[in-house]
């Protein structure tokens, strides 16, 4: 299983801080598509993705147990 974390406006839209999904073997891009479909969030094109707290490209393949974070454009500072 994989934990998917949501932040900022994505959290507001999903209504959850995190969900559990079985996405091992899928790419980051595929996970984004699944999340967009399953939780009715608007396109995730501008969101970056982190796997285990490190930014990951759309082609990267998820391993079982990986923690995935969907990261909207940041606005700290």
């Amino acid at each position: 299983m994989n934990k998917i974390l949501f932040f900022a406006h994505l959290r507001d839209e999903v209504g959850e801080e995190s969900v559990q999904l079985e996405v091992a073997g899928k790419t980051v891009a595929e996970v984004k598509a699944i999340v967009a479909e399953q939780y009715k969030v608007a396109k995730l094109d501008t969101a970056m993705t982190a796997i285990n707290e490190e930014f990951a490209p759309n082609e990267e393949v998820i391993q079982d147990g990986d923690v995935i974070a969907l990261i909207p454009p940041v606005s700290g500072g």
Partner: protein
Amino acid sequence: MYEIAKENIDIQSVIDKVVQREAGAITTFIGTVRELTKGKKTLFLVYEAYESMAVKKLEQIGTEIKERWEGAEVAITHRVGRLDITDIAVVIAVSTPHRADAYEANRYAIERIKEIVPIWKKEHWEDGQEWIGNQLETVSYPTGKPEEGDLNE
């Protein structure tokens, strides 16, 4: 050296972390909550962070700075939670042997924070609220949800 803080940031304690006998210059950047942005009056802000990753990314910025500016020491604390006008959102302290480096390295730190550190701010006004979309303050989600136009940029 790199922290996410839930309470007021004490500036001096961030500066103290970078004091070194080899330094002739310390610069600090203190990001504060401004009342007016493009003529709109902010009531307060809420900052949210992906804390564990944010600390790692702040550390990464420190490492990048030390590679680029020899002898630099860096400390960064970023606030989360609710902040009122003039409250401190972030303190960056950089010490270097010579002053030009201290300015440049500090500036680099704030620009990198706005690029790679997973922290988000939600602005609250009298007539609404929104998550601010990116570090350059050019993309925002006016309704609290991104709209087609925003996301296609």
